[in-house]
C-alpha cells in the first residue's frame, strides 16, 4: 500500500435507513489524502461531506468499502482507538471542565501521567495563544476563543489526522479570516494532516493544498485550488467554484458558434457537436464596439477595486464581466461594446 497516504477511502458508500426511505449519503467514494497536506472537502449542503468525515473519524461505519490509515484498515476500529481527532462544528467543549482540563482530556484518557499532561496542555495552549485562559470555563470565553480551545483539545494528543467539520462557520467574517490563517499556520507548524470541510469555496481556495469537490455523495474533482479553478472538469465544479458564465454552442470549424450567431475561437481538443464554454468574469475583456462579439452593457455594479458589468449578446443571453475599476475605460449602461475572451483561459466542458 502507498504509505505516503495518511487516509485512503476505497469505494466507500454509506446508505442511511433502508427500503423506500434509504438515503445514499455517499456513493462509491475513493480518495487518497497525502500525509501532511491540508485537504479540503468542498460541496453544497447535503452532499455527504460530514458523512465522509464521520466515516474517517469512526462515528459511522461505511455500508461498503474500506478506510485505511497509513495503509492500515481502520474501517471497523472504534473512534477511541483511532489516532484521529475531530474539531466539531459546535465545538462540543466539556462545559464542566476548565480550558486546561478540556485540552488535557484526550491525553488523560490515553493514560498519560499528570505531569506530562500538564506540560503538553501548556505547550498546546501556547500554540493557540490561550495561555492566560487555562483556568476559565468554556462559557466564560468568546466564540473565537472557544474555537481555539476546540482546536487545542483535538491537537493535544498529536493525532495522525485532524478532521475539521466547518469549524469556522459560527464565526463572523473578520474572525473567520483571522482563524483561516491561524489554521494554516497551525497545520504548517504541527505537520499534521488536516481534512477540512466547508461549503465556502473562497475558504477552500485560500487555505487548501488540495480540494475535493463533492456533489450528491460523489467526488467530482480532486486537485490543487489553481487547477480546480482554472480547469474545472464539469459544469458543476465550474459553477460551484467562483463565478462563471456558461455559453452553450456548436463546434464549427476552428471555433464555437454560440446562440447569437457569433463564432468564438476556443482551444478545442477534438470535441464536436454541442459543448459548454465556461468563462470567468475576469477573463472577459470589454473593448470598443466592432471588436469581438457585439454586446450591450445593461447593468453595472461598482464593487470598490472591481466593477461588474452585465452585458447582453445578440441573442439576449447575458454575461457578467469583471473589470478593474481603475483600468481607465469609462463605460456606462446602454453603451455598445465588443467582447473578447482570453482564448487560453476559457474552458470547454463536455455538456
Amino acid at each position, binding site marked *: 500500500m502507498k504509505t505516503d497516504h495518511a487516509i485512503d477511502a476505497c469505494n466507500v458508500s454509506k446508505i442511511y435507513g433502508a427500503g423506500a426511505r434509504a438515503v445514499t449519503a455517499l456513493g462509491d467514494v475513493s480518495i487518497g489524502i497525502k500525509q501532511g497536506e491540508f485537504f479540503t472537502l468542498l460541496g453544497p449542503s447535503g452532499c455527504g461531506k460530514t458523512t465522509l468525515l464521520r466515516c474517517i473519524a469512526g462515528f459511522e461505519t461505511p455500508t461498503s468499502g474500506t478506510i485505511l490509515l497509513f495503509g492500515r484498515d481502520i474501517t471497523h476500529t472504534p473512534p477511541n482507538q483511532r489516532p484521529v481527532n475531530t474539531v466539531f462544528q*459546535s465545538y462540543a467543549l*466539556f462545559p464542566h471542565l476548565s480550558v486546561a482540563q478540556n485540552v488535557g482530556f484526550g491525553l488523560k484518557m490515553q493514560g498519560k501521567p499528570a505531569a506530562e499532561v500538564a506540560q503538553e496542555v501548556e505547550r498546546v495552549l501556547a500554540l493557540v495563544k490561550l495561555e492566560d485562559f487555562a483556568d476559565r470555563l468554556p462559557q466564560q470565553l468568546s466564540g473565537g476563543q472557544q474555537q481555539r480551545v476546540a482546536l487545542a483539545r483535538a491537537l493535544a494528543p498529536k493525532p495522525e489526522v485532524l478532521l475539521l467539520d466547518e469549524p469556522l462557520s459560527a464565526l463572523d467574517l473578520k474572525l473567520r479570516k483571522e482563524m483561516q490563517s491561524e489554521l494554516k499556520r497551525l497545520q504548517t507548524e504541527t505537520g499534521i494532516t488536516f481534512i477540512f470541510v466547508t461549503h465556502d469555496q473562497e475558504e477552500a481556495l485560500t487555505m487548501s493544498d488540495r480540494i475535493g469537490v463533492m456533489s450528491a455523495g460523489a467526488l467530482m474533482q480532486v486537485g490543487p485550488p489553481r487547477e480546480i479553478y482554472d480547469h474545472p472538469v464539469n459544469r458543476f465544479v465550474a459553477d460551484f467554484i467562483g463565478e462563471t458564465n456558461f455559453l452553450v454552442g456548436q463546434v464549427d470549424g476552428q471555433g464555437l458558434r454560440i446562440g447569437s450567431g457569433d463564432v468564438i475561437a476556443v482551444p478545442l481538443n477534438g470535441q464536436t457537436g454541442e459543448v459548454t464554454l465556461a468563462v470567468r468574469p475576469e477573463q472577459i475583456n470589454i473593448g470598443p464596439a466592432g471588436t469581438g462579439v457585439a454586446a450591450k452593457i445593461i447593468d453595472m455594479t461598482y464593487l470598490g477595486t472591481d466593477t461588474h458589468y452585465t452585458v447582453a449578446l445578440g441573442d439576449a443571453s447575458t454575461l457578467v464581466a469583471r473589470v478593474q475599476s481603475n483600468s481607465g475605460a469609462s463605460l456606462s449602461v446602454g453603451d455598445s461594446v465588443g467582447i473578447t475572451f482570453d482564448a487560453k483561459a476559457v474552458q470547454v466542458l463536455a455538456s
Partner: protein
Amino acid sequence: MSGTGKTRSKGANGWLLSAPALILLLLAASGPLVIVVIYSVLAKGDYSGVRWILSGDAWFRVLFEKDIFDGTVSLADANLSIFWRSVKLSLATTLITFVLGLPTAWFIGTRPKTTRALWLFLITIPFWTNLLIRTFAIMEVIRNQGLLNTLLIKIGLISAPIQILYTDTAVLIGMTYVYLPLMVLPLFAAIDRFDFKLIEAGYDLYASRWQILRGVILPIIKPGIVAGCILVFIPSLGAYVTPRVLGGGKNMMIGNFIELQFGQGQNWPLGAALSTMLLLIVLVSLVVYTRASTRGGPHG
C-alpha cells in the same frame, strides 16, 4: 450613585407591595412548624393535647429511656433503631430509584421528540391513582399467594412462597415504586438539556464508555441527580402509608412512630419532638449532601 439609590427605593417599594403575600406565606409555611416546635417543649396532657408547662420530658424521651423500676437512664434503643431504619430505608430507596431511574430517564431523553411526550406521560400515570390504592396493588403482587410468588412457584424457581409482605423488602419495593417518578423527572430534565455531541467528543478523545459516563455525563447532569435524590430522600424519610400497609405493624418508620404518639400513644409533646427531630435530620442531610455535591469545583 444616584442610580443605586433609585433602585434601592424601588426595591423597598417592591417589598412593601408584596408584603401581604409574604406575610401570608410566612404564616402559612412556618406557623404550623412553630406550633410543632413549641409543643415539643410542653408537658403531656392527661389524655391527649398538651399542658402549657415548659418541659424537656419529650426531648428526653426521644433519645433516652428511664427504667420504671430502678430509674436508670439508657439510650432509647427502640426510638433510635426506628430512626436508623428510616434513614437506611430512605437511602436505599434513593439509591435504587437512581439506579433504575437513570437508564429510564436516558431512554426517554434519547427518544425522538414525537414519542418523548408519550413516555413521560406513562411515567406519571401512577401519580393519577390514590397512593393507598397503589400500595394495596403492590400488596397484591407480593403477598404469599400473590402474583410474584405464584409466578416464581410456577416456573419452579422456588417451592414455597417467600415472605416478602410485612418485611423491610416490601417497604423498599413499595417506596421505590412510589418515588421512582420523582427521580426520573429531574433526571430527564437534565438529560434533555445534555448535548449528545459531547459523548462523541469524549469517544473521539480516547475515552471508554465507562469514562464517558463518569467523566462527562454524570458531572454534567449532576444538578438533576441532586434534585432527584433530594426529592426522593425527603418524602421517603417521612413516609407513612407505604410502611404502614406493606411493613405491617412492627416495621415502623418515623412517620408511623410519630402518628402513634398523636393517636394511641396520646403523647403530643413526644410526637412533636419526634417531628422536629425528623426535620433536623432532613436539614442536616440536605446541608451535608449539597456541600458534598458542590465541592471540588469544575472537576469530573
